[in-house]
């Protein structure tokens, strides 16, 4: 469904390298993309796969790759390049059990911090987590939208349980984001083309492809608005501030949390990915048992949807964050949002969190 979403969003370039549990996306794109006037190719490693995509993006093409923890480790150098050069690309990361090669067919939700904070410099990479095949489709279209509009890499953080499960999908009910394209530069604007031009820090530079009518100067090194290598001129620092500002300025728009409300709730359950489904089942059972509980399924993990999360937690005494990792990674990220509320974790490694695990943590 990630592949279907990508095709709907206008993805025309995919480069892949085999890895369980992400190979399904690779295979689907190899089968589907050439029929839809796109290129899907096999790379000799994950470094090449993402670099091919970023190169294609530089030529003005919407591009995506897919991988899992071990392959993602190799892509980190290149995702930083995409971030610095402001080239849109979507990476579907289907998590498995780590660390290292870990377990290829075992689930994990433990690459959240590793993925989000992979940049030297610490810039926010938008990240969306689906919990169902329908959401895989929807989230992929959302990922392309923001990648294109903000000229940034975007991560789809799926997991083995979501990615390798077969399930009925009602295609008529699929939801998608509007198909968006990066805004292109034109001399009609009456300005000279600079590769990284912006007025306000949060503005997104107008794009021109390599091979287009305007000279493009791409660089992964610190640069001014023209793309000229600089050390620490005021303009170069502004470019660095701009990389974060353009994301921050759209944080509220990117925020997606699905709330199952209960006005009198004592407990709020926060979860994402496969665990969000388990949480919904736990809440169904808990309510049958008379408990007052509210549910928040976080789709947009980053930028952290702080306002929406705080609103969701209004009035509850306890916040339960359920996630399949050892130390409560997302809990550690959102803890500071709730200085006056108890926040507890339900965690597991190498095994699914069950509805009972979550129910046991409710007030």
């Amino acid at each position: 469904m990630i592949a279907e979403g990508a095709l709907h969003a206008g993805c025309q370039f995919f480069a892949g390298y085999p890895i369980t549990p992400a190979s399904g996306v690779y295979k689907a794109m190899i089968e589907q993309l050439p029929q839809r006037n796109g290129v899907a190719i096999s790379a000799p490693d994950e470094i090449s796969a993402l670099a091919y995509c970023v190169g294609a993006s530089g030529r003005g093409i919407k591009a995506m790759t897919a991988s899992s923890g071990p392959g993602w480790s190799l892509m980190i150098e290149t995702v930083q390049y995409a971030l610095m050069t402001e080239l849109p690309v979507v990476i579907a990361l289907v998590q498995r059990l780590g660390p290292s090669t870990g377990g290829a067919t075992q689930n994990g939700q433990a690459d959240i911090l590793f993925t989000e904070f992979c940049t030297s410099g610490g810039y926010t990479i938008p990240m969306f987590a689906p919990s169902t095949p329908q959401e895989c489709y929807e989230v992929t279209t959302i990922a392309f939208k923001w990648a294109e509009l903000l000229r940034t890499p975007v991560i789809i953080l799926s997991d083995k349980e979501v990615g390798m499960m077969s399930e009925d999908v009602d295609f008529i009910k699929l939801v998608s984001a509007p198909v968006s394209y990066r805004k292109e530069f034109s001399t009609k604007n009456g300005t000279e083309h600079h590769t990284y031009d912006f007025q306000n820090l949060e503005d997104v530079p107008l794009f021109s492809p390599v091979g287009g009518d305007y000279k493009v100067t791409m660089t992964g090194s610190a640069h001014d608005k023209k793309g000229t290598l600089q050390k620490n001129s005021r303009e170069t620092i502004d470019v660095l501030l701009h990389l974060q500002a353009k994301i921050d300025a759209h944080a509220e728009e990117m925020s997606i949390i699905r709330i199952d409300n209960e006005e009198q709730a004592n407990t709020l359950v926060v979860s994402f990915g496969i665990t969000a489904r388990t949480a919904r089942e736990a809440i169904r059972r808990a309510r049958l048992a008379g408990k007052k509980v509210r549910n928040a399924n976080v789709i947009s993990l980053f930028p952290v949807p702080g306002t929406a999360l705080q609103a969701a937690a209004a009035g509850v005494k306890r916040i339960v964050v359920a996630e399949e990792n050892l130390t409560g990674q997302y809990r550690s990220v959102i803890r500071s949002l709730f200085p006056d509320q108890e926040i507890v974790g339900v965690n597991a490694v190498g095994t699914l969190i069950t509805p009972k695990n979550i129910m046991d943590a409710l007030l």
Partner: protein
Amino acid sequence: MEETLQHHTYTKDNAVFPFCKGCGHHHYVNHLDEALFALNIDPKNVCIVSDIGCIGILDSLFATPHTFHTTHGRSTAFATGIELADGILRNSKLKTIVVIGDGGATIGLLHLVNAALMNVDVTVILANNFLYGMTGGQHSQFSPLEFVTPTTPAGNIVPPIDICSIMKSCGATYIKQAVATDKNLGSIIADAVNHPGFAMVEVLELCTEWAVPFNKFDGKTMNEKLRHSNDGGVPQRKDFATLYKEKVLGNLKKTIDDTVTPAYTSALNGSRRIVLAGTAGEKVQLASFLYMKSAIASGLHATQKNDNPVTQGSGFSLSELCVSNDEILFTGIDQPDAVIIASADGLKEVLANGTLSRCVAETIIIADQTLPEFECAGKISRLPLRALCTGSRAALSALAALNVVKGWISQDALWEMIDGKFKDKSGSFHRDIEALMPFIKT
């Protein structure tokens, strides 16, 4: 006196070279400019993809072509992406030129190998000065034997990469070696850029800062000792973009059609969770898949999850099914309604992964009768699955027989799926199921 550029068509006017006095990179830049000048290419149709190191900052000297200053060693991979997009999805207008040093060629060797194998229309001009000049003259994997550098004070004892031979073995169609001072370097580069398909030009240079002071190599000895005759590409073949457009683009007609129409009905209320366990290659996961599709055809929701050892074709094969008239939320099986164990591999796995320990008194267990005794809370039917159905029909026959007894999903839907899949061989399943059905304890 500062050395400046000879041509001004592609490079910046009066640009000051950032290179050390006497460095071969001066010749390199001038000859690249000269080559583009000779080819008379519109600079908007040129993309220079530069790497890291002294030669990597060359992009800043070019005023008019597009430039892509990339990460260490990866320049060829980015260039490959640009070329694939340009050659297949755009109008093949770009001349994509990679500017890389021997350090970049080492760390990114696989990118060069794959670009040559694919025969992408990219030109690589490798400035080989045998060491890492920018970072203090450390030796590289291109350093010749006995080469003295700060990291090989006793002389290099490891033979160097012969990039021309590697490129040849990868089917590169244009390979040339030159020394930076060669007068005809400009025309060699022009030939390479003009060449349709992958082209490699290895330019030999001596680093004036780190190589010259410690080694006896000079221009003469470099010509004698380092220049070799391993250049010359393999016969011309079609480049990747051309082949892709001919053979792949629009030519794959295979479509994934997993569309199921819910033409049947089921009276199931609530969910049923089933575990199938058997041996790889014995159609355990296929049985599960057909049941899942039949459940969907019955108007139900269904999920299927498979597991197997990493090698896929040996050991156990496991599948977990959930069918429900309501949306399926939790996708695990905390309490199975049925477990089918078709082989010893399957039994070993359901014992190991805790499936049997999660069974309750109502759980229906169907196990091959030859399996050893095992402890389980459910109602166990030990049937001659393998003797009657053979291994490859055991799981599906047992599952279908169970469904006849319990009626969880439409049996008509299941028959349609089985008959559609196995066609004239589906009669065996009908016989198996008739035989098994009376003996299932529920």
